[in-house]
């Protein structure tokens, strides 16, 4: 019978720093602790006393890879507090910013983090250029990432900590030459995205479990900014009511908060979005996917990878349609005087639903704020799944192999520890689990 402690100080090929403690005694898992070990940088304390309109750029620094999602969630929260209704063009530019982010970020996860597990290599850069398929994947991966980066840079100024999106609009607008280049690059990358979808459709990794899914879903078309929060129970929660529905759970060994909904753990991210909103995907995406979409809704956690690949295609098709049909023109940034208010912004970041909430005074100075990130919401699911996975593997597998399988599963959740460790819990509550 197995008896061992498995300690993983720092996981690899994930965003940020996470560790894991597992105790196995006489063939049974005694505990699993998925620990987010990033040091807190206290952003939700630091925002107190700052002018409201400075928050998007400050809170962008919570996380490099999700930065543009934080900026857009923060801008939305600020605009709700100031009663600013963004223009139609601003909304379109924000959608394009999200397209660029998802293309770049999902491609990083799928090629650099996940694909080495499929090929049996330690690193994406170790892929063999003399092997035609691996050669193709190397070129595809960097091409798709570059297209997302180009689109984000064209629309938002940078793909990390974007500088053009601000409260009330944008400060720069895509020029004709840049739009033309983006269209050519997006069209050229489309076959690579279709190959990527095939790779993850064919992937046999599986971990099936029943869970609840939650995502912000728009009414009319697939997107990442508008809509209400849909759960597996058919609820449609308005953004402003989110706090009544998420229950915080403190894990004393982790630098991050975890969350439950109606006393049950739930999952956010690309799998949740495709499960709940596949009928809203871009028509060109749906046409190319054919029967692949029948695999959803899926409760297999590894299908997150396929869902991300599908979202890359959607973002590419959506961006192409907009860039080919929309004429961008310079616009003034909308400004409104400060007022006492609570502003809430909710977006779908690449890894799932992201909430920003600020309480601001009539002087325009922030009194208090809260940020809830996707990985915090997935943390309980991740622990539960590792527990089950290890228990299932124990009779047949050695410790080293189990460790590899655990890392593989955690990567499928695409966790982001930089985000998860930002927050501050002032009052210690709850009993250690």
């Amino acid at each position: 019978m197995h008896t061992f402690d498995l300690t993983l100080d720092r996981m690899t090929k994930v965003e940020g720093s996470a560790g894991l403690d597992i105790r196995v005694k006489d063939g049974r898992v005694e505990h699993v602790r998925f620990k987010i070990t990033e040091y807190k940088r206290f952003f939700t304390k630091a925002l107190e006393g700052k002018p409201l309109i400075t928050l998007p750029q400050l809170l962008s620094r919570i996380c490099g890879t999700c930065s543009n999602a934080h900026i857009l969630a923060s801008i939305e929260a600020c605009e709700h507090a100031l009663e600013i209704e963004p223009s139609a063009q601003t909304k379109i530019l924000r959608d394009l910013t999200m397209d660029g982010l998802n293309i770049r970020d999902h491609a990083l996860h799928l090629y650099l983090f996940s694909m080495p597990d499929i090929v049996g290599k330690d690193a994406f850069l170790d892929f063999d250029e003399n092997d035609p398929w691996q050669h193709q994947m190397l070129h595809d991966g960097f091409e798709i990432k570059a297209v997302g980066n180009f689109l984000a840079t064209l629309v938002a100024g940078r793909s990390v900590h974007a500088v053009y999106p601000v409260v009330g609009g944008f400060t720069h607008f895509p020029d004709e030459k840049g739009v033309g280049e983006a269209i050519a690059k997006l069209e050229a990358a489309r076959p690579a995205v279709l190959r990527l979808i095939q790779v993850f459709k064919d992937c046999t990794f599986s971990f099936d479990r029943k869970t609840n899914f939650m995502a912000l879903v728009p009414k009319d078309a697939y997107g990442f900014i508008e809509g209400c929060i849909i759960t597996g129970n058919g609820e449609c929660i308005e953004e402003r009511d989110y706090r009544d529905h998420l229950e915080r759970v403190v894990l004393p060994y982790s630098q991050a908060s975890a969350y439950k909904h109606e006393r049950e753990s739930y999952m956010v991210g690309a799998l949740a979005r495709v499960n709940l909103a596949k009928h809203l995907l871009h028509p060109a995406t749906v046409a190319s996917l054919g029967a692949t979409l029948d695999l959803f809704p899926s409760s297999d956690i590894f299908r997150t990878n396929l869902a991300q690949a599908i979202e890359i295609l959607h973002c590419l098709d959506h961006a192409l349609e907009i860039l080919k049909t929309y004429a961008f023109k310079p616009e003034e940034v909308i400004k409104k005087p400060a007022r006492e208010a609570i502003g809430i912004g909710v977006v779908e970041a690449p890894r799932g639903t992201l909430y920003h909430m600020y309480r601001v005074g009539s002087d325009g100075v922030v009194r208090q704020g809260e940020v809830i990130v996707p990985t915090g919401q997935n943390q309980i699911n991740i622990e539960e799944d590792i527990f089950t996975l290890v228990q299932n593997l124990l009779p047949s597998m050695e410790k080293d192999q189990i460790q590899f399988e655990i890392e593989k599963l955690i990567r499928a959740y695409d966790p982001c520890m930089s985000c998860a460790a930002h927050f501050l819990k002032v009052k210690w509550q709850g009993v250690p689990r």
Partner: protein
Amino acid sequence: MDNEKIKIGWFSFSCCEDNTIVLTEIMNDHWQDWKKIFDFRHARVLKSKNILDELDVAFIEGAIASDEHAQKLRDIREKSKKLVAVGACAVIGMPAGQRNYFSEEQKQEIEFLIARFSALSKVLKVSDVVKVDAEIPGCPMEPKIFLEVVNKLVAELTNKAPALT
């Protein structure tokens, strides 16, 4: 063959890892060159089997938030010919070190968390802990400046003219 390559380490401490993301974006255009000349011996974002033995260049992003961080950084310094601080948190300690500038009241409110996770009372920049050979500022770093520094280091380490543009 790997013996001839320049041994690179990429390490992240307390930060948002934006420079890591920018690095992976710069790679979009340079991966074929880098595959030939660099041996990424320690880069957790890229691989699982990381080795910290002898490095030609160690890139450090992030600020130093704990004794464990400081110890690790000293260890990296000992094993590296060149050490480069990358991005604002490494170079000036901010914004990762924003709690250094909190009011007394704010500091009291976070004290129990500093204690629970054995964090340093004051967050440090990299040069507070070890000697730094080069700095690449920015939040995040500018790809152009990063490439200039890399080219210069490659030239120094190989005694050749810069090869990358």
